[in-house]
C-alpha cells in the first residue's frame, strides 16, 4: 500500500533501491563503496545488511562495473550500478555507448541489457573540474539509452524505479547538491510509471521555461521571482531527456510564444540546443527569439566564488527571462 513519508533526496533514492531489491529478485546493486561503506554520499546505506550478497563493493573499475552489468543483464539479472561521479562514466563509456546501448538493436531484439546506471552530477562549491561536469547531452545523444534527471525526492524515488523496471539500459543522473536537502513528503509504494513524461511545475502565460536536473530548483525560484514582477512563467521540468516530452514543450510554447531553456551543462551542444531546435522545427510561431542559459563553455573553476560567477543562478535566470520577454536576444556564451 502506498504511504507518505518525509525524505531527503538521497533518502528517497535509498527507499527506491530498497523497493527495487524487494520487487525484483534478479536485481543486483553494486559499485565502488556502495555496500559496506553505504556509498560516499550515504545513499546506499543499510542495503548490504538487508540484501546480503546481492549488494557488493567493486574494484575501482568503471569499465568492469558497467561492462559486467551489461553481461549480467543479458543473462537475466537486473543490475543497478553506481558510478560515483558522472565524470567517471567516461572511464567506462565504451560499455555505455558501444555496448549497453547497442545490444538490443544489433541482436534484432534477441538480447537486451536492462541495467540501470545511477550517477550524480552538478557543480557544488569547491568541486573541481573533474567532479563538476554536466554530461547529460552526451548520453541523450545515444539511441538505445534512456536518460533521466530527477530533482525532487518524489522524482528521485519514482524515476529510479521506472528506470529499473525498464528493459532498456537507463542512466539516472541525480543532483549531488540535492542529496542532503530538506525532507519532503514522498509517496512510496505506489504504482511504478513507465519511462517518459515531464513535470509541469508552474503554470504561466508569458514565457515557457524548460529545465531539468540541478537547475530545476533554481529555475523554480527564478519563476517565483519573475511572478513578483509580473512575468508569468510556464515552467516545465523535462525529467526524461530520452524519451523527451516534446509535446509538453510545444503545447506550452504555443501558448506563451517565448522560450528559455536553462541547464547547468555547457551551452555549446548542450541539450538546450536540441530543445530549441525541436521548437524551431515544429513551426510554432514565437514572439521573441528563444534563449538558452547554461554554463558558458568553460571548465568549472574550483574556487566557490569563481564557479558562482559563471553558473546559472536564479538572478541570471530571471535576467535572461526578462530579456526574452523584452524581445532582447539572450547570448549566454
Amino acid at each position, binding site marked *: 500500500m502506498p504511504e507518505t513519508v518525509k525524505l531527503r533526496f538521497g533518502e528517497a533514492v535509498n527507499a527506491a533501491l530498497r523497493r527495487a531489491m524487494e520487487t525484483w529478485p534478479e536485481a543486483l546493486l553494486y559499485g565502488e563503496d556502495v555496500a559496506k561503506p553505504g556509498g560516499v554520499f550515504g545513499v546506499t546505506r543499510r542495503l548490504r545488511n538487508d540484501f546480503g550478497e546481492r549488494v557488493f563493493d567493486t574494484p575501482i573499475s568503471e569499465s568492469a562495473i558497467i561492462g559486467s552489468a551489461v553481461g549480467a543483464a*543479458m543473462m537475466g539479472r537486473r543490475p543497478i550500478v553506481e558510478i560515483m561521479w558522472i565524470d567517471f562514466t567516461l572511464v567506462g563509456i565504451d560499455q555505455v555507448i558501444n555496448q549497453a546501448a547497442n545490444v538490443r538493436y544489433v541482436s534484432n531484439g534477441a538480447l537486451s541489457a536492462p541495467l540501470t546506471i545511477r550517477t550524480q552530477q552538478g557543480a557544488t562549491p569547491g568541486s573541481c573540474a573533474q567532479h563538476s561536469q554536466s554530461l547529460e547531452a552526451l548520453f541523450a545523444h545515444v539511441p538505445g539509452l534512456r536518460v533521466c534527471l530527477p530533482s525532487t525526492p518524489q522524482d528521485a524515488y519514482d524515476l529510479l524505479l521506472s528506470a529499473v523496471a525498464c528493459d532498456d539500459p537507463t542512466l539516472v543522473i541525480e543532483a549531488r547538491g540535492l542529496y542532503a536537502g530538506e525532507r519532503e513528503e514522498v509517496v512510496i509504494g505506489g504504482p511504478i510509471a513507465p519511462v517518459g513524461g515531464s513535470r509541469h511545475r508552474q503554470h504561466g502565460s508569458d514565457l515557457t521555461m524548460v529545465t531539468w536536473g540541478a537547475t530545476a530548483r533554481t529555475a523554480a525560484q527564478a519563476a517565483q521571482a519573475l511572478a513578483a514582477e509580473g512575468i508569468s512563467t510556464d515552467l516545465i521540468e523535462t525529467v526524461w531527456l530520452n524519451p523527451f516530452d516534446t509535446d509538453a514543450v510545444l503545447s506550452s510554447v504555443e501558448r506563451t510564444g517565448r522560450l528559455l531553456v536553462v541547464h547547468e551543462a555547457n551551452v555549446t551542444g548542450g541539450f538546450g540546443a536540441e530543445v530549441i531546435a525541436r521548437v524551431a522545427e515544429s513551426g510554432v510561431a514565437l514572439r521573441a527569439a528563444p534563449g538558452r542559459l547554461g554554463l558558458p563553455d568553460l571548465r568549472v573553476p574550483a574556487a566557490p566564488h569563481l564557479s558562482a560567477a559563471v553558473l546559472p543562478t536564479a538572478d541570471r535566470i530571471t535576467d535572461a527571462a526578462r530579456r526574452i520577454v523584452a524581445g532582447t536576444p539572450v547570448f549566454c556564451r
Partner: protein
Amino acid sequence: MTSHQPAEIGDLAAMQRIRSFEEKTRELSLARQIIGSVHLSIGQEAIPVGACAVLQPQDAVFATYRGHGWALARGVPLAPSFAELLGRSTGLNGGRGGSPYFSAPQYGFFGENSIVGAGAPIAVGAALAARYDGSGRVAVVSFGDGATNQGAMHEAMNFAAAFSLPVVFVCENNTYSELTPIAEMVGEPELWRRAAGYGMPGSRIDGNSVTTVRDAMAAAVDRARAGEGPSFIEAMTERLVGHYIGDVEHYRPAGEVASAWQREPIGRLERELVAQGVTEAVCRAAVQQAADEVERAVAEALAAPLASAEDVKEHLYA
C-alpha cells in the same frame, strides 16, 4: 570406412565447416555480394572448435569481430549466418548486426564485438550472473593478442579474479595486433605470464592443435565450474589471411604465410589421424561433407529476400 573412427573426425569436420564458411565469405565479399569489412579467422579454427567442445548449453561465449568461427563452433547454423552477412531477412540478426556482431543467445553465443577488449567485462558479467541464478554457467571470452593491452581487459581480469568468477579468458595470439606485431607492442611477449599478476592460472598452449586446446579448456572450465575462479589461456596460432579482406599484408615477412600453411590446424589434424590409422578417404569425406554443407547453406541464404527496411527502426527499445 574404417570401423574405428576417433572423435577427432568430428573436430576435423567442425574446423572445415568454419574454413569453408569463411572461404565462401571471402568469395562473396570479393564479388561485392557481402558489403563491408569482414575479418576472417582462417588458420585459427582449432581454438573455437577445441574450446566449444567442452562447453555445455548454459555456457556463454563472447567473441571478437574475428568471431564467425566461435559462433559456428557453438552450433549456430550456417544458413542464417550467411544470411546475416548478405543482409537477408533470414539473417541471424535481421541484417542489423553484420559480420562483426553475430549473436545467437539460443546457442549460447552472446555476440561478437568490434571494440577490441570490450567483450571481457561483459563476459565477466555473464559469470557474475551465474553466482545468483544457479545455472552453473561458465563464461568464455576470446580476444586477440592486441586486446590484452586494453584497459578493459585488465579491469575484467581483476574483477573476475577478485570475485572468483567462472570465466575463461582465451587469448588467440596470432602474433599480429591488427597490422602490427604484438612483440613490438609489449614489454613481456609471453602474455600468459600476466595471469599470475591477477591471481589466476595462466598457460600458453599450441592453439593449432585442437586436442591441446580442448584439454586446456577442459581444465579451465572444470575449475570455473567448481567455483575456483577464472583462468587465462594463451593459444598460439597464425592468421593465414589478412586482418581484413583486402589486406595485402605488406607488413608480413616474405614466406611467413606460406610457412604458416604448413602448420595450419586442419591439415595437421588430418596428418595426425592418418598416422593413427584413419584412412585418408575418411578424412577427405569429413572435409567434403562440411564443404558441401556450406554450399547448401549459402544457396539457401542467397535465395532469401533482403531484410525489409520497413521495420528498420524496430528493436532499439524494449
